[in-house]
């Protein structure tokens, strides 16, 4: 579904290379996890996939396959990538004061409908649709009438990210440290939500610091990212090894 080929990247206008040649192929139906110490480039990778203007890709390409056609998404704007079914659950979800969550979600949802040539949903139908998704995440109904992420607790913000994922139904989702700052109950709910959204045609890339999350969202592959490079890729048992031994043994 997505092929990341030899990606080198730095902060736009900066000198220091953060990603130093990432290669990663993810097929439909798979769940991949990326682990790594602080500053290894995990979040940078997620932002590059979503198209954050803060980063500049100096080399490499990201090929995304949809409708039997491969596109280098680096040429696309963030909203175009989103419409193609790429979703990023932010590590730090942004507060949008005054903008009602359901208005925001409906606008986003209808953009995707428009893109797919489907009919847009009216407020009432959408309301029903969103409520069904909220049930999935055990969310309070009051949630959607509040401004996006404003005065949300850390856990609520993360749940809101997964709600958006549920509503927009992406083909490829990147979850950037969705577990950080969550207590165990919230993590269970969020993970359940994510697992329920898993489907044959979808793929997920889970970025995390802790092995804990991977007990709930079980990956097919675990990659260790250190200093801008993937140094090891194995099955889910790699996460346990890292949990136990740390990262030092992986640096040669």
């Amino acid at each position, binding site marked *: 579904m997505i092929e990341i080929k030899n990606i080198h990247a730095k902060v736009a206008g900066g000198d220091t290379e953060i990603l130093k040649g990432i290669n990663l192929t993810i097929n439909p139906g798979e769940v991949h996890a990326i682990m790594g110490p602080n500053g290894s480039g995990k979040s940078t990778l997620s932002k590059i996939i979503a198209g954050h203007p803060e980063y500049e890709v100096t080399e490499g390409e990201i090929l995304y396959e949809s409708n039997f056609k491969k596109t280098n998404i680096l040429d696309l704007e963030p909203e175009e990538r*989103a419409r193609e079914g790429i979703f990023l659950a932010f590590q730090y*979800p942004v507060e949008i004061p005054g903008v009602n969550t359901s*208005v925001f979600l409906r606008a986003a949802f209808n953009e995707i409908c428009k*893109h797919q040539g489907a009919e847009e949903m009216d407020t009432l139908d959408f309301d029903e649709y969103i409520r069904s998704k909220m049930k999935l995440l055990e969310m309070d109904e009051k949630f959607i009438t509040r401004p996006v992420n404003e005065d949300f607790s850390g856990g609520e913000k993360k749940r809101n990210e997964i709600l958006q994922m549920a509503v927009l139904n992406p083909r490829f989702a990147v979850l950037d440290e969705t577990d950080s700052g969550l207590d165990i109950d919230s993590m269970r709910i969020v993970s359940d939500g994510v697992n329920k959204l898993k489907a044959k045609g979808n793929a997920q890339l889970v970025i995390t610091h802790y092995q804990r999350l991977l007990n709930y969202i079980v990956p097919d592959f675990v990659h260790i990212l250190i200093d801008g490079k993937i140094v090891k890729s194995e099955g889910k048992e790699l996460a346990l090894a890292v949990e136990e031994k740390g990262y030092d043994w992986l640096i040669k």
Partner: protein
Amino acid sequence: MSKITEENLSNEDTIAANKLSSREYKYGFYTDIETDSIPAGLNEDIIKMISEKKKEPSWMLEWRLKAYRHWTTLKEPKWPNFKYGPIDYQALSYYSAPKNFEEGPKSMDEVDPELIKTFDRLGIPLSEQKRLTGVAVDAVFDSVSVGTTHQSELEKVGIIFCSMTEAIQNHPELVKKYMGSVVPYSDNYFAALNSAVFSDGSFCYIPKGVRSPLELSTYFRINASGSGQFERTLIVAEESSFVSYLEGCTAPTRDENQLHAAVVEIVTLDNAEVKYSTVQNWYAGNEQGVGGIYNFVTKRGKCAGKNSKISWTQVEAGSAITWKYPSVILQGDGSTGEFYSVALTNNRMEADTGTKMIHIGKNTSSTIISKGISADESNNTYRGLVKIMPSAENARNYSQCDSMLVGNKCSANTFPYIEVNNSSATMEHEASTSKINADQMFYIMSRGLDMEGAISLIINGFCKEVFKELPMEFSVEAVKLLEMKLEGSVG
């Protein structure tokens, strides 16, 4: 500056002109029309000349002269939160009208086609065939009203809607009774100046028990250079009447600063309601802050009657400097005052705006919702006063003043004055600041919306309480206007 050459302004052109791709001021054109201006300068002879041109009765001239004499004793106020270049009041021309206007147009057919074309281009068609349905328009071009639509329809229900000049000639008793009753000529420097030299404006009288079937509207256009615009609007709503009034304004792109010192007075009697909406888009100067209108306006309403209501809604998106405080004097028991405002400044614009709610009567209530958006290197100030007088038993006020900053070279200030002189009063004031920044834009865009959609979403969210107060078509226009102004500043 060229004459309008497009022979037929088709719909496509209008749509093209509305396209949001550019921040350019689309109303910046100039109409090359022969004008009749009086020489620059300000003295009693000039005022007599203006009065004569308008064929005014002597009481009007006397009032003007009194105002002028008072003005000469006043000093220009220096307290606002901005500086502006000195205004040479002797260098301005206080009257500029399209040639041969002395008689005034008898009907729309007699109006100079060039003028009709100008207003067409501004989106305000005046001619019988094309005029807007549901809205009666009084079109003011420089110093004079060039025409008022739908007059006959309004006459049927007894509503008087005409230019101030006509009102002075045809309804002197009403003008005499109400003009200056809310904003006396001695009120402030610019009100005194206006009272001395005002050239035209709109007059609107809603008789007892009548709800106006149409929205009434005045469109102000400054065209001539070296002049200012000093119009006066007076709205009187008799018992149990209602009217919704709209105001729009534009001016050509020019290097000089032009002064717009208007006065608007509203009087509501028992159970009457007036809703006054403004979308102000005067030319604001260029990116370096050269040129633009000085918009120094005194707007005030008096809820004279019991249970009456005055509501101001303004979207201030233009002018080099906006300096005004649409206010309400809540005199009648149970009366209500409202102020809903969005003020946007970008480039080097300055705005110092807000409201005054003066509670005098018992059980009076007021609401203030102010949204300031500052971008680029502009300054945006909310300044407001809520005053509960000792007589105002059980007065209520709710105020909310929010600011949004776009970029870090601009500033947002909030100066609310709250004076409570009656212990039965309840008032609540809230203010906050928020931002529109690259992270938010990216977040929204990563959910599939484009730049335009993202700005629109944020602006709509920030201003929704104000936009919902505007008549539908104004609201759409206002959102587009703000989006267009902000596009270059975000991201």
